[in-house]
């Protein structure tokens, strides 16, 4: 029997290595895998590269992971959040690397990693600082920038429903980066609000099929709150 559900956070986090690239889902507080981020803090891996839309808020979650000195580099589109104090302090002190990526390029680079596309061209960023040092090409009179795929060693995902094969659905704007990151990582770890029996999720309505998922932990935490 295929059973991707895990019973404990320790099982969920097993094997995450120092130096791993970790893709972290969520946009704002919605669809953010808070329990898994806390699990990663507990687990202890360091020298991490984090790809996420933001660079942490306040002193919890990703910000806490950074504050503990466990993040070598962050890849994101919007390091400024409502309260980015930890990131900004570390960044000014030269204790964390930053790679700014336009939000759509960030999503597409992970989608490309999941789809076997190592390099693609996009108009986003052409003629800006984002294109500096990158290959560009004129195609039909327009300038495009070459972007590489962004694969993850690990993805931390928040789902609404999950089953033992790893099929997932997401809720409203909680979908965001989660399905794309699930495709892009070698080890995809999910916290799900609801654990469903196999076959209970309508096969026409699965958002992320189990082929992209490795571990499912049931975390019925309720509604997201705060940003």
């Amino acid at each position, binding site marked *: 029997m295929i059973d991707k559900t895990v019973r404990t956070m320790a099982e969920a986090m097993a094997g995450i290595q120092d130096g791993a690239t970790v893709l972290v889902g969520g946009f704002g507080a919605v669809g953010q895998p808070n329990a898994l981020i806390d699990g990663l803090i507990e687990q202890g891996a360091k020298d991490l590269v984090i790809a996420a839309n933001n660079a942490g808020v306040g002193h919890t979650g990703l910000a806490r992971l950074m504050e503990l000195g466990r993040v070598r580099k962050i890849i994101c589109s*919007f390091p400024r959040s409502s309260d980015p104090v930890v990131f900004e302090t570390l960044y000014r002190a030269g204790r964390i690397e930053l790679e700014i990526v336009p939000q759509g390029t960030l999503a597409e680079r992970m989608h490309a990693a999941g789809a076997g596309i190592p390099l693609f061209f*996009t108009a986003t960023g052409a*003629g800006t600082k984002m294109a500096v040092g990158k290959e560009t090409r004129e195609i039909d009179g327009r300038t495009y920038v070459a972007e590489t795929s962004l694969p993850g060693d690990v993805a931390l995902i928040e789902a609404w429903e999950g089953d033992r094969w790893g099929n997932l659905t997401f809720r*409203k*704007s909680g*979908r965001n*980066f989660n*399905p794309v990151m699930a495709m892009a990582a070698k080890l995809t770890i999910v916290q799900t609000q609801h654990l469903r029996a196999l076959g209970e999720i309508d096969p026409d309505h699965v958002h992320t099929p189990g082929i992209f998922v490795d571990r499912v932990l049931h975390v019925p935490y309720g*509604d997201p709150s705060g*940003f």
Partner: protein
Amino acid sequence: MSATAVSAAKPLTRPEMAARVARDIPEGWYVNLGIGIPTAVADHVPVEREVVFHSENGVLGMGPAPAKDAVDPWLINAGKQYVTLRDGGSFCHHADSFAMIRGGHLDLCVLGAFQVAENGDIANWATSENDTAPAVGGAMDLAAGAKRLWVMMEHTTKDGAPKLVRRCTYPLTAVGAVKRIYTNLAVIDVTPLGFVVRDMAPGLTFEELQARTEATLHVPG
């Protein structure tokens, strides 16, 4: 000519600017409103005129902000404000959401800006080449990808420095992308000729507008 010379003019308020932009958005358009000033535009599109508002985080068909006691904690926009969804709205993931943007499927994007140049260049994400940690978000995708890019901003900085310039001095968001600019003083098209004034705030003279604009303004030909 100093700023105080604009004596008889009545600059538009923020709500008036939003209403002015809203007036130009026809039914049926797919529209992304940038974070900040542009967000208010949606409030000025009458509900019976169906305009489909898109948000980068996978929301298509946003409705107005919810009543305080009717907030859905699972439904926010790219500015991380609570929103609602109209009948006919839908959700998708980030790559699909940005495919809408980057694939040229949005009829319009309205962004705020620090500077717009007469060749259509826009600078709206960083105020210096040395900005230590600038936050670009989806601005570059929107500026490069939408069928039309309009900018909505104050005509000058708080210090009176022009924001409609010959060449942007701040880091660019996109090259040659802006089609029209809505300010508190005027509506200005970006054309192959440069800036062409389409509309001005009540009581404002062309000369007064030019005095507050670095690049040369043209009258419609």
